[in-house]
């Protein structure tokens, strides 16, 4: 007769299960956030004390077990150099392959084969990229040196390439084909359509994908292990071994000396700040372009 009869009440047991499950789903989400909070806390807690040491950003690591451990200048500059070179190669080649896939290859068997191989590349562990470059470039002492910074860039290129290709392909596909058709109908040749219509329309998406690829490349250690190796002093020659932030952290962790471990935390904080800025920048550009 009353409304409760028309809609029979949910039994207490079912209501309890609902509540318990909802609470546990919420709890799982909180658990997922705990590691992030802990990592950020320890990074700031231990890293800031390294940042405040004099000369942390302006001197090079000494590499000596006694005395001052030095700063991390050569590691920061080395990372930037190697990643900059990797970016210079991977962005044009990555966007180029993506252009081939969306503008020329489309759904042909060759384009699908390329897509498949790019997918395979995304699944290849990053240490394998280092091994490949070791086999091809380091063993043969290509360029007259064994380990060299530019070989690390090539390894990072292999790592960043599939990221750039996949993200670029997604945004290039979003460019409306009516835009391409309009340009072609006005008599523009294909290459002009690509450079004046397709690429500018997709620009912000391409930048987002590239920034994410750069952020990925910046934090990778494994591809550098057997390609760049490491050095303590500052060098700008890409044909020599070079210091990098991830490698410096990796070697400093194993040091028994507390001062050097502190350097590792300080370097990690620096690295994470740079990577986070790149990530947030990518996100910002992506969200702004979506509004437009």
């Amino acid at each position, binding site marked *: 007769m009353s409304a409760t009869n028309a809609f029979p009440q949910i039994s207490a047991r079912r209501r309890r299960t609902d509540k318990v499950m909802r609470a546990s789903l919420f709890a799982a989400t909180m658990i997922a956030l705990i590691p992030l909070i802990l990592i950020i806390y320890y990074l700031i807690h231990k890293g800031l004390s390294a940042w405040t040491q004099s000369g942390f950003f302006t001197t090079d690591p000494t590499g000596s077990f006694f005395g001052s451990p030095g700063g991390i200048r050569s590691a920061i500059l080395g990372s930037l150099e190697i990643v900059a070179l990797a970016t210079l190669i991977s962005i044009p080649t990555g966007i180029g392959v993506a252009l081939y896939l969306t503008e020329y290859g489309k759904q042909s068997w060759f384009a699908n084969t390329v897509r498949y191989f790019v997918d395979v*590349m995304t*699944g290849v562990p990053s*240490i394998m990229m280092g*091994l490949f470059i070791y086999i091809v470039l380091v063993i043969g002492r290509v360029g007259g040196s064994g380990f060299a910074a530019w070989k690390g860039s090539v390894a990072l290129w292999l790592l960043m390439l599939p*990221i750039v290709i996949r993200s670029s392909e997604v945004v290039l596909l979003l460019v409306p084909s009516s835009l391409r058709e309009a340009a072609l109908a006005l008599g523009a*040749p294909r290459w002009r359509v690509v450079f004046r219509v397709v690429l500018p329309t997709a620009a912000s998406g391409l930048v987002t994908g590239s920034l994410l690829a750069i952020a990925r490349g910046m934090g990778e250690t494994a591809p550098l292990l057997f390609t760049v190796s490491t050095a303590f002093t500052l060098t700008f020659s890409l044909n020599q071994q070079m210091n990098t932030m991830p490698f410096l952290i990796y070697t400093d962790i194993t040091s028994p000396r507390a001062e050097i471990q502190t350097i590792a935390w300080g370097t990690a904080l620096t690295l*994470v700040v740079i*990577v986070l800025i790149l990530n947030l920048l990518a996100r910002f550009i992506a969200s702004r372009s979506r509004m437009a």
Partner: protein
Amino acid sequence: MEASATTVTGDRSVLERSPVGRLPDRVLKWGLSGLAALILILIVYFFIRLVGQSGHVFSTYGLNFVFGNDWDVSHNIFHGGALLFGTIVTSIIALIIGVPVAVASAVFINELCPRRMRGPLSILVDLLAAVPSVVYGLWGVFVLAPKLLPAEKWFASTFSFIPWIGGGIPQLYNYFIAGLILAIMILPIVSAISREVIATVPAEHKEAALALGATRWEMIRMAVLPYSRPGITGGAMLGMGRAIGETIAVVLVIGSASKIGSHLFSQGYTLAAVIANEFGEATGIHTSALFAAGLVLFVLTLIVNMIARWFISRGSHGTRGTGATGMTIASGPASET
């Protein structure tokens, strides 16, 4: 003749571009095709070189290299069983811990939490993917491993009746710590793919469940999860692929033992870790053995990724071939908002 000469040069109509004018088009087309072909050639070339480099070890040890249980560098014995075992065990631990948390958080973010909180929560979970693996290693070595050791000791002695899980004396670096770090590292990718898959569940299915009187949880259990199961499975497999190949974070907390560990909290080794750890001082057949470990790792990740892709393509219900999921797979969850 004269009239046609104004409109036609040679045998080409006025609407056609001159050969010179068409040149940039050809250059672009063949240049880009060549670039794409170059990638295929590179991958095949690398694979052949890798097989070539590891041939020495496979001809010496045969399949014992993969399954034998002794990795003794000083005696030149290279049986990678312990490595394969460690790789699989740590990634399974990562799945057992990471996937339930990742899927639950994805369900919560998509179905339960207030709409306003959806974006920020997704971003926070995704940020875990932005942390470099060496930083996870650093944190694992100085924070996680020492802080969890007492808990592991308690666990091992309390549950000593469970074979392999309990009983032994926990060491500072062990399978469990490595698996736990891996669980944290695969959490964002599994969560991001699950979120995307769950978002494709048709609203009609959910509304139908609610209209039939289901509670929220019953709606999730009966409408959301069955529909998105293949996609979530694919995401988990993809996470496993990442876990198998993860190197730097694992090498720091796995303990580098050359034999299969006797319990969950004993030191172990993984394929990726052995390469990172021993490559520097390897010579001769040792180098070849490390390349062979790389080959096994490569094949293992290929298989896992293929299975993952198969599940994801089945789970996307044919609507989104190279859509957002493809982007997430490629660039990690950070690309997804």
